[in-house]
């Protein structure tokens, strides 16, 4: 058991070294000229008050611009609850009818 754990540790250190080299080549953290701030985010920030009338931009994106995704999100939660109740309550009850 000890040798297997040491082998896993060596593999994890090798993978971490590879990932750190990639993390150093990413665009610098927090600059406004990064390629992640493109014209999609600019349109959402500029026009959120005119199109929806709410002051919170994250709520306007989640519940108005992308309301379809939130609807399937609630269906995913409902399915998870259904799966848990079926797994834990399907035993024969003896004594009760």
């Amino acid at each position, binding site marked *: 058991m000890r040798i297997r754990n040491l082998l896993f540790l060596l593999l994890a250190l090798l993978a971490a070294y590879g990932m750190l080299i990639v993390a150093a080549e990413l665009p610098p953290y927090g600059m406004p000229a990064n390629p992640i701030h493109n014209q999609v985010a600019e349109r959402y920030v500029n026009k959120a008050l005119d199109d929806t*009338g*709410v002051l*919170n931009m994250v*709520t306007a994106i989640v*519940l*108005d611009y992308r309301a*379809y995704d939130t609807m399937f999100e609630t269906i995913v939660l409902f399915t*998870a609850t259904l799966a848990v*109740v079926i797994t834990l309550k399907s035993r024969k009850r003896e004594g009760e009818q």
Partner: protein
Amino acid sequence: MRDFILKRVAAIILPFICIYGFYVILHGHVSPGGSFAGGIIVGLSFIAYSTIYGIEKGRVKLPEKVLTWTESYGTLWYGIMGMVGIVKGAPFLANKLAGVDLGAPGALSSGGLISLIGLGVGIRVASTMVTLFFTMMEEES
């Protein structure tokens, strides 16, 4: 001794936590928060009550019929709110294209359908948390 202190402190603090959760849900479009975080806060207040005072008293407050009703109709509420757009000739789940009055920004009743949908999602998330907790706790007996 520990039980005594927990029961006295919980009786004073837990109603305020429940009201704070409803405040975060209802003011989701003015201040940070929203429907998901507020629903989890309301659900946690009921779970804390059941942990401290016992499962029997927790079941008296939220029987199984109420939880099933809230869970099923909360998911249907979202679809019914989307049909408002189809009735008026706009795409499904439309807010401004369907002609809903938006109101003054910053007031509590602004945003059209957004605050109604947020209330439904918040109550639904709280009901999911309480249902999962009761199902796993009653399996122990």
